[in-house]
């Protein structure tokens, strides 16, 4: 018979499977054996290349150890051997689902050292592009989550939206994914004359079909609720302890958005709401992402209505050599806080570049919350964090 303290001891684990006898001392006493299982790095549902070493007790995970580095390129070392402007195309390769935000973060960090005034039109275009990018990143996030739960339709809808945004990006920047559009001192080129109207048309179209394609199709679905409600539940205390930012933090109810609390670029001039949810589980993160897309639409409309006239590039001189010192840039990427720390020694190349990537930090949560969950719950939890391989591996 189990003594009472053993039964109490099992509550150490937090997930849905906490009624099982997963406490280590119980396992030892009853001679229950665990099974080590390797998941990834080449796993069809994994977000990129990530290997999870799992210890299983039956179908319950008791230990999860994320092992990364399969896409490590040492971006920070490469950046030390390149001129300041030549680092921008590399930042595109960090989080390849939010390239504009990566460029923006790096550019803000270098401009922090340069004492240069960015033309208002360039700032507005940067925000316009970043918010389009956020839609193009959040919709596939939802699609991937649903694909992992076995629904195939949402990924088609979400990639349809992403493709249409990429077509806009192609017209503006010349590239579909690796843009190199946000430059030191402004943006590469002004918007083509017909693009504001095309963006407006696209946004109206997205808005009119949004409820049908992304909300009615998913929300309230029985399988969706069964697989996501209560899965990966985090308390706000835990979320802040683990350094979460972005939708995983906001879905626990912590009201924090760098766009509002640490305003940069054109964001002080636009009006938007910070979306929070009380659930703290996978379903809540889905709701946060859905509502953030609607806020992005709102921001894009405001920017397009009040797009300032003028230049899109400040006079930067021929060689960019910031004075000795350091600069910080911080943007709200679709996954959370993307911060860049650049240290200059007065030469053409940065002395040190450090990227604080939201995927890397948020992924720490895996080893904290997966223990106690069933094996099939891992993929929805990955959908909550939504990490990107290029981001966590740098």
């Amino acid at each position, binding site marked *: 018979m189990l003594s009472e303290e053993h039964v109490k001891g099992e509550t150490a684990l937090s997930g849905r499977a906490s009624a099982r006898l997963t406490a280590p001392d119980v396992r030892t006493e009853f001679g229950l054996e665990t099974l080590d299982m390797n998941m990834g790095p080449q796993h069809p549902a994994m977000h990129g290349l990530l290997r999870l070493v799992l210890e299983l007790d039956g179908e319950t995970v008791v230990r999860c150890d994320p092992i990364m580095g399969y896409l490590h390129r*040492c971006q920070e*070392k490469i950046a030390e051997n390149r*001129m300041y402007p030549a680092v921008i195309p590399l930042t595109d390769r960090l989080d390849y689902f939010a390239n504009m935000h990566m460029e923006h973060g790096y550019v803000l960090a270098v401009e922090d050292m340069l004492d240069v005034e960015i033309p208002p039109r360039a700032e507005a275009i940067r925000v316009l592009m970043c918010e389009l990018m956020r839609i193009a990143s959040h919709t596939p996030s939802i699609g991937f989550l649903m694909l992992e739960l076995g629904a195939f339709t949402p990924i088609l809808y979400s990639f349809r939206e992403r493709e249409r945004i990429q077509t806009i990006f192609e017209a503006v920047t010349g590239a579909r994914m690796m843009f190199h559009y946000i430059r030191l001192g402004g943006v590469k080129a002004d918007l083509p004359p017909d693009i504001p109207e095309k963006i407006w048309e696209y946004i109206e179209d997205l808005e009119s079909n949004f409820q049908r394609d992304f909300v009615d199709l998913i929300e309230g679905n029985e399988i969706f609720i069964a697989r996501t409600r209560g899965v990966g539940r985090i308390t706000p205390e835990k979320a802040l302890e683990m350094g979460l930012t972005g939708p995983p933090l906001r879905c626990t109810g*912590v009201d924090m958005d760098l766009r509002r609390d*640490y305003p940069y670029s054109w964001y002080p001039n636009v009006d938007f709401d910070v979306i929070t949810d009380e659930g703290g589980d996978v379903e809540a993160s889905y709701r946060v992402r859905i509502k953030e897309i609607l806020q992005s639409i709102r921001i894009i409309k405001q920017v397009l209505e009040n797009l300032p006239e003028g230049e899109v590039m400040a006079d930067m001189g021929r060689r960019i050599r910031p004075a000795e010192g350091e600069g910080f840039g911080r943007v709200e990427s679709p996954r959370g806080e993307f*911060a860049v720390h650049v240290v200059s020694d007065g030469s*053409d190349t940065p002395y*040190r570049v450090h990227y604080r990537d939201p995927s*890397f930090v948020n992924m720490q949560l895996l080893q904290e919350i997966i223990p106690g969950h069933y094996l099939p719950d891992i993929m929805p939890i990955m959908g909550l964090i939504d990490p990107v391989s290029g981001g966590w591996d740098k």
Partner: protein
Amino acid sequence: MAIRLPEGDLETRLERYQEGLRAHGNIEEYETKGNTVQVTTAPGEVPAVLAAAREELNILHLSFITVVDRQGSFELTYELLDLRGGRVRVKTTVEGEEPVISTATHVYPTANWHEREAYDMFGMAFAGHPDLRRPYMWQDHFDHHPLLKSFEISTKRTFEGLR
């Protein structure tokens, strides 16, 4: 909800942070610039300063830890956010070829992977860290720390001849 984010005017809050940090650690230099309080302290004081920031000043978010190789010494930057517009930056310098500093994981658990990354890239040892393994490079058979300035890459370029 138990979480209490800071309220009130940013300037008075920054003043409070500066006073609070000075009261709790042996601060060598301090400076308030814009929305940032920057303090410089000895490496041994870092855990005490971080603990004061989290426990008493209610600065809940550790954004990142950066290490800079100054060839002979290592400069560490701990960037903290109060999540309402204020920033606190704790700087310290660790001397020597084989640097050691106490871990911050017991104050800010999120420091875990930041410190693992710093260990991987610079060989910076964090005393008391629960799980100091290399996140990126090969644990068993790669003895180098790639972001050290002494780690030369084959395609090193200089831009000195350019005009």
